[in-house]
């Protein structure tokens, strides 16, 4: 009821002052678009973020799920919305850094958005079926070299990070494995458990319960640093491929026309949010590490990732011809 009153009041205020300046922002309900289905990992991050923003900004924050096309539908929607600070997106690495390179989208990830801050990151875990004689990431490289094309790896589809991280791994180690796409990360992880595929670079959240039950063997993580959730696992970068990085992140982006004053104000809020122990605890439950970046850092990270995947695709295409 209270929310309803607040929402009605803010609507009234918004109509009264159609041109609210950035200093007064926010004066009405903020919409947080989530380009994924409710109940998923990004949705969890969004709800934690919305909860904190409501307290910090004193305005209602609605989570609006717009799932479809691996995040493209919702991301495309936010690119076309007016930049008034009342529409924000909890975007993710897939729709921002990979899809624009992999399959072409109608938005330009660097021109149509203003990045504000990454709020959470989650590494991928290299898991193999325990029946394989592969005990470490070094074993994986030498086994794959000895048996070219024979190892099958599962992925969430041709346009996702689960495929791209393995493609990068293959290109840098000079190995060749067979790609077996699934409809989503969860069935791909299940296929490693059942042995239908030999391995996958899977989300840490999906991998952890199976690791505990010894239904899969975890070899390494794909992030530049070890994960707090499985500190015993080495990174790919420290073992076989220095500089290797493929990490899933969720971050807040606004439409490109959003005033800088609002971006700065939000950046300050996210800096405090990353230090909030309650937020850190909730993120940890969802399997994520809480992170803060400045808008400039975030922008250069997106540009860097786009470049990494673009050159990888070119490399793969060149090899084929």
């Amino acid at each position, binding site marked *: 009821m209270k929310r309803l009153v607040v929402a009605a009041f803010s609507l009234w205020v918004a109509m009264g002052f159609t041109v609210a300046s950035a200093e007064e922002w926010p004066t009405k309900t903020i919409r947080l678009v989530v380009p994924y*289905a*409710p109940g998923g990992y990004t949705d969890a991050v969004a709800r934690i973020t919305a909860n904190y923003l409501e307290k910090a900004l004193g305005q209602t924050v609605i989570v609006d799920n*717009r799932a479809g*096309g691996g995040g*493209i539908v919702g991301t495309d929607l936010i690119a076309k919305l007016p930049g008034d600070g009342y529409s924000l997106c909890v975007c993710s690495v897939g729709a921002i850094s990979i899809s624009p390179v992999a399959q072409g989208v109608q938005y330009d990830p660097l021109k149509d958005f203003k990045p504000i801050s990454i709020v959470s990151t989650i590494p991928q875990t290299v898991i193999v079926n325990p029946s394989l004689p592969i005990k470490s990431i070094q074993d994986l490289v030498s086994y794959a070299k000895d048996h070219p094309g024979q190892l099958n790896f599962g992925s969430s*589809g041709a346009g996702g990070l689960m495929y791209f991280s393995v493609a990068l791994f293959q290109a840098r180690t000079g190995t060749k494995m067979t790609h077996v796409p699934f409809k989503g990360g969860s069935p791909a*992880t*299940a296929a490693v*458990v059942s042995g239908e595929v030999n391995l996958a670079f899977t989300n840490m959240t999906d991998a952890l319960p199976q690791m505990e039950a010894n*239904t899969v063997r975890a070899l390494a993580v794909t992030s530049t640093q070890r994960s707090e959730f499985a500190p015993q696992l080495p990174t790919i970068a420290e073992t076989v491929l220095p500089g290797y990085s493929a990490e899933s992140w969720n971050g807040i982006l606004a439409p490109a026309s959003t005033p800088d004053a609002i971006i700065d104000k939000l950046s300050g809020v996210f800096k405090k949010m990353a230090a909030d122990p309650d937020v850190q605890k909730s993120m940890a439950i969802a399997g994520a590490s809480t992170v803060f970046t400045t808008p400039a850092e975030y922008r250069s990270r997106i540009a860097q990732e786009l470049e990494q995947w673009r050159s990888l695709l070119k490399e793969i295409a060149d090899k084929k011809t």
Partner: protein
Amino acid sequence: MMSVFGLLGHGFAVAATPTNLFFCLVGAVCGTLIGVLPGLGPVATISLLLPATFALDPTAAIIMLSGIYYGAQYGGSTTAILVNIPGESTSVVTAIDGYKMAQQGRAGEALAIAAIGSFIAGCFGTVVIALLGPPLALMTQRFASPDYFSLMVLGLVSAVVLANGSVFRAISMIFLGLLLGMVGMDINTGEARMTFGFVELSDGIDFVALVMGLFGVAEVISNLEDVSVRIVNHTRVGSIWPSFRVLKGAWGAVMRGTLLGTVFGILPGGGATMASFSAYALEKRIAKDPSRFGKGAIEGVAGPESANNAAAQTSFVPLLTMGIPTSATMALMVGALTLHGIAPGPMIISRQPDLFWGLIASMFLGNVMLVIINLPMIGIWVRLLAVPYRVLYLIICVVCAIGVYSVNNSSFDVYLTIGFTLLGYVLRKLHAEPAPLLMGFVLGPMVEENFRRSLITSHGDPMIFLQRPISFALLLLSVALLISMVMPSISRRREEVFQE
């Protein structure tokens, strides 16, 4: 090691606390309501209520959310039977004979059989989870892509049986369904297929939009056109309680539907929908007089309704024993558990015995609540038919529109529904039935996905489908079914030739 009954007893102690009982009831009531409302499905409802459960204890939360899911299977048949609009995808086939029964003034009977069948199936499914959950989950682990492919082929072949009229039209409808199922992103290449530049179509055509258009709104249009159908509708309501004779006739169908649903529910991918379709096909196949089907056969209601409830129950098995969700609803359950700090995985039974056994016990209690809620409601639902159609059809259209919108919060899906309404109306005029189309639409993408994946894993060797025993047996069954369907028409043609 406590016996299963000891553990189940402990589960009842957990489920029967006032709080958990209350949330079980809330779930059952919510589920019944959204089941009745066409288009509004458990996925949209659970995601809407998910944030509200954050304050609850995880067991209470999961009990309530599960109640919504299996409760929706009870309610889904109501509008299917009364006004030929399936409330859920699993009730599509229930509408074929259920609606005919309602037109004959046997709506009460059909609803009662649906509720009783659902209750028996729900309880049986729960017993199966309790006694056989973990071993069954291990069994499904043996199912790989080639086996799924062959299972889907069997499903497509039996889709022909769904048709009441010409086999040629049924096959055309299956192919049209397959074609519609192709729309969307190809997972092997990431390329968009037949989306015509609409990003909204990149995940394919939404099932709810398709069903609401082809069945729901198209039905409204043909009702508005044909006054005589409507008069039959609300002049004769009939007795609510089924006679002993009817119960006896439905009994076998309930049992077969329950068994079929229990098996299909455990398998990933559209388990409950596939279960209800197959149950209908099976009933029609083994009936002494298959021509009764499509004209108000009670088995056509009892079989599918029992099957979808049993499947709704057993679809929890892979999630609770392996941590593997097999449908969109189960993925939401994973989300709910994760947000409550419980990682669903193979260890969940030993780590969270309260949750596991409490949930199973709550399913028994929930099914009892549902049958108590639903049986007296039948009288009220049947009276709904007395509402003048000029009012009723507006309500139906508005509810359909809200339901379709709620799935993805997308107005694009509402426009799609309008398009499919036109298609549905044209198909009606051509006397082509939409049920085989839906079967093609549901199974087509799964056939393709599993076929291509099988060939990738076998490095291009098609013998993989014959080398795996499960796959081989299923393909053999498909061929046998196909021959048995073609044979009568061949011999009939011969007779005709000889008569000339």
